[in-house]
């Protein structure tokens, strides 16, 4: 692997992808092309299928039908564990290994890849990247705050220099201040590293802030696919409008309060 500062993430193609649980259609016939280096937000209410759709990309969930390609290669061309090692994965419950030091948590991907050397240097680099102090390396996860833990989660996902990042409500469990700063920092990381990122969120404000393209899902189907600007202009359909209405109303209310 090169130590070049910028990596261009892959392009993705989802073709007629469905996932059924008995008679429940979690995801139904989704077709989506994602450009290399894009930051996509999957937005929807609970049970809309956004998380299932994300997990089918790294095969934590297998599709009932349809094809998924990364840079033109089918995801099931290789074993699931081989595929997943190439993709960064961050999720709401973080899942740091409580018995391992922060350094080992971050370097676990390198360990799995069989890289024997350079762990310490890479850990140090990643701690800088997620803006954590170097002396965190020797601590155990339970000694860190929630925000710090999720920074470690991001660092762990980036350790093997994946081009594609899948993020499942990554900042959902954090307090609003931490959440906002972490989202901002991640956005700049995404740009600096030239990643392709797909982020699942139920928070439209977060999606509008982070993403350059927003997919709105309802009952497993795409109801809207638009840029933040298009969404805010209110011309992409009622489902999207309902979600955008909330942050818009909040913003209006806040600005009213400021005036009075």
């Amino acid at each position, binding site marked *: 692997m090169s130590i070049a500062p910028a990596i261009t993430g892959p392009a993705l193609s989802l073709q007629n992808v469905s996932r059924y649980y008995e008679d429940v259609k979690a995801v139904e016939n989704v077709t989506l092309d994602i450009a290399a280096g894009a930051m996509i937000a999957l937005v929807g209410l609970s049970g809309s299928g956004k998380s299932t759709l994300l997990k089918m990309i790294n095969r*934590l969930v297998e599709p009932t039908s349809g094809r998924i390609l990364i840079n033109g290669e089918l995801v099931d061309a290789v074993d699931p564990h081989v595929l*997943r090692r190439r993709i960064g994965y961050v999720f709401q419950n973080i899942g*740091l*290994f*409580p018995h391992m030091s922060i350094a080992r948590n971050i370097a676990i991907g390198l360990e*799995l890849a069989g890289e024997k050397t350079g762990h310490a240097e890479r850990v140090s680099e990643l701690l800088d990247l997620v803006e954590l102090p170097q002396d965190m390396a020797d601590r155990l996860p339970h000694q860190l705050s929630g925000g710090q833990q999720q920074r470690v989660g991001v660092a762990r996902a980036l350790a093997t220099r994946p081009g594609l990042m899948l993020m499942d409500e990554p900042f959902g469990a954090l307090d609003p201040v931490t959440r906002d700063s972490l989202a901002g920092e991640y956005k700049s990381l995404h740009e600096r590293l030239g990643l392709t990122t797909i982020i699942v969120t139920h928070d439209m404000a977060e999606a509008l802030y982070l993403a350059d393209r927003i997919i709105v899902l309802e009952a497993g189907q795409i109801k809207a696919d638009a840029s933040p600007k298009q969404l805010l202009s209110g011309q992409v359909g009622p489902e999207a409008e309902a979600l955008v209405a909330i942050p818009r109303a909040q913003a209006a209310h806040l600005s009213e309060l400021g005036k009075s």
Partner: protein
Amino acid sequence: MNMTAWQDAFRRVPELLAAHVQLSFSALLLAMVICFPLAIWATRNTRVAGVILGFASLIQTIPALALLALFYPVLLGLSALLGGGISALGFLPALMALTLYALLPILRNAVTGLTGVSPAARQAADGLGMTASQKLRLVEAPLAAPTIMAGIRTAAVWTIGAATLSTTVGQASLGDLIFAGLQTQNWTLVLTGCLASAGLAIVVDIILGVIERAIRDRRKMVAWSGTAAIAAGLLFALLPSLQSSEDDVVVIGAKGFSEQFILARLIGSRLEAAGYQVRYRDALGSAVVFQAVAAGDIDVYVDYSGTIWTNQMKRDDRIVSEQMIEEISSWSEQQHGVTTLGALGFENTYAFAVRPEDAEGRSLRTLDDLALISSEFVFGTDLEFLERPEWATVRQAYPLAFREARSFNPTFMYPALSSGEVDVISAFSSDGRIAANGFVVLEDNKGAIPSYEAIVLLAPDRGTDQKLRSALKPLVGRITVENMREANYKVDRETDKQSPAQAASWLDDIIRKGDGQ
């Protein structure tokens, strides 16, 4: 209690402790080898978990002693099926029973520990691209380790305790001291056995507890030190058995009463004088001991003609004693390759004994007299008499119908008669306590009870051992019932008790004097 009794008892501890540790550790290790794959399987399949845990719980409801006893016929059958070669006595049945007994705590804790790993950690492991085995090694096993360790700890304490029972299937353990002490009312011996096994259990529990906490707190140094302590203890316990190079050890069997212990020591001292190393297997059940000599698990022991006649040969006809021994000799040789070396010269038959005042007051002289009033009497027997064919024969000959029948360890049968807890006992005719208590033996006027001449039996590959035969031949026909009674009484009496070895040496002196040496 005097100091030499304690010294005598403690002298036996190292060897038995070594056997005890070897057995417990092997059982624990085997249980772990069985449990870990099962636990992993169970965590991947809840139906499997239900079946496996249910089975392990079921085993736990079987008393340990019964579980040990059950493996004897199972292994005997297995050995017959495979054409021999499997020893049904000693280490193997003990190992299997204790292993089964250790399964539940290890299995339950391993399943609890593995299923208790947080879903987030599992999801992270999958998301990072761990294979199933990497996930197990790097995430699940380390996180479940403290719980698994707690299960091993519980199993270790149980196993060390239950291992004392393996004496009954002929495996040496600290239980040898407890059982032998109980039979001869040697409380020093019982206490020594208890202290040693309880001490072992406590020490192991403490060390495993330290390891368990160290794993939980992730203090690797402490965990490794604890493991090193266990390893050192194990090595120390194994030293005695590693040192003794066993070229030609003769294993002498004995059933669970004083006379058997004394005769075993008498045989042992003669064999040692002839240059053999000897080992004792005390307190074997009388049902297993003949199979044991036939299988070569023990090399020599003393049995009684009537026992072989009724229990092994299933005969219920009555013939004269000399002819009976001849028939036993040819039967055991032909059927089992077991050699009958000869009769020792005394008989130890079942003798129905009553208190002298009852014999006088109710004019009891024979079993017929007893039958007339048996509905008023409580019958005290040893642990096996009521199940033996002799009892069935006696009941056919005399219409005995006791008010109640109670089984005792032979040691407690005599005091029960003197104290009036029971009114008649199935005593042993060579027991010194009959005369010492003034008990009256009722005559078997119909000759229902067969003759019980003490005979020396040799395992198949010892029958041709001329050196061994000539070392033991001088004992044949040399022990009178009076001398045997006196030797038994030295061990059985309440005060000034002697050890079976001391009584054996007294008996040996008498025999040598008789030989004119």
